[in-house]
């Protein structure tokens, strides 16, 4: 792995870490969702930094990959997949909470209708609808 590509990987992962931190600072991303990003980006950074050691070459040979930079790309892709799965679970949770809200709302509307009916009946006014 050349120094050039290693530097690119390192700069890339640092850029991601800084972007995520800035987005959290500006409240565009909840801190708890940023944790996963930071763990993944840091892992990627560490792998990039140690890319020059023999470990990466060894790992590439084991997996049958020709060039060590390719291994890092693959690791990066796996991290992205893990992140996407994480987001799928967050979205699912949001769906369930949203559904509960909607159902509660339906019940609330029904209760208001009942209250309006009772109020109109007791005051003897015919409903306008």
């Amino acid at each position, binding site marked *: 792995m050349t120094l050039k590509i290693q530097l690119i990987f390192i700069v890339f992962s640092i850029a991601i870490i800084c972007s995520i931190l800035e987005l959290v600072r500006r409240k565009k991303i909840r801190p708890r969702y940023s*944790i996963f990003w930071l763990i993944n980006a840091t892992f990627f950074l560490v792998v990039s930094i140690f890319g020059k050691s023999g470990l990466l070459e060894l790992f590439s040979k084991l997996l049958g990959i020709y060039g060590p930079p390719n291994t890092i790309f693959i690791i990066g892709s796996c991290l992205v997949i893990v992140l996407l799965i994480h987001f799928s679970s967050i979205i699912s949770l949001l769906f369930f909470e949203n559904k509960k809200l909607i159902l509660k709302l339906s019940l609330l509307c029904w209760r208001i209708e009942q209250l309006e009916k009772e109020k109109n009946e007791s005051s003897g006014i015919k409903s306008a609808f």
Partner: protein
Amino acid sequence: MSMDRKVLTIILTYNEEKCIVEVIKDAKINFPEGDILIVDGESTDGTVSRAKGMAVNVLTVPHSLGIAGGMEAGIMFADYHGYDFVVRIDGDGQHPAGEIKNLLPPVLKNEADLVIGSRFKQTSDDYTPTMVRSLGIRLFSQLLFLATGQRIYDTTSGFLVFNKRVIKYLSSLRNFEYSEVETILILNKAGFRILELPISMRKRQGGQSSFTAGLAFFYVFIGLMSIFLGLMRPLEKTGGKEL
């Protein structure tokens, strides 16, 4: 203490059926000027029924939103009904209502916007945290000092008193997620006056803390992150809309 202004006493509860009646009685006797609002995180025990039996308002907030949700609901309630001041205490009996009259005057006299009732400015017999917690608390305190320039010892105290300016400001924020540390950071950056006064707290009067070890660690981590980010670049002093 005669009051011509409205005070809302927010009591946050989750499964506190053992002591909720005592807490409400304590609030009614020792701080009758406050309208009591119980904000319950969907308790699975008799907390809500016992509270309703004491003729106080009860607001139910989904458990998944936690203390943050409860507090934000209470603030929304206070804003909607035009309350001038909010007093917040926890439903586990750790916050004696008698201490409210020690925290309220600075806000009443408009010398402070937020008053924090602190466990750590003076030693209190009933509350002694463990070594690890003390270190964590001192760490938070030191970091918060670096980020805000203000010395606060009890950064996670739930015993708070604040005024309408704070109510309006917090209600106006778009991306706000309540936590004690976050609130101190934000209010400090926005120019509000924060005061910390010593009070004595009791031990939890029954029931269990909903904070597991894992959850506590998680919130500490999130809190540290907020403080570090607050250190990174000072948040712009804003009027209140954009953060």
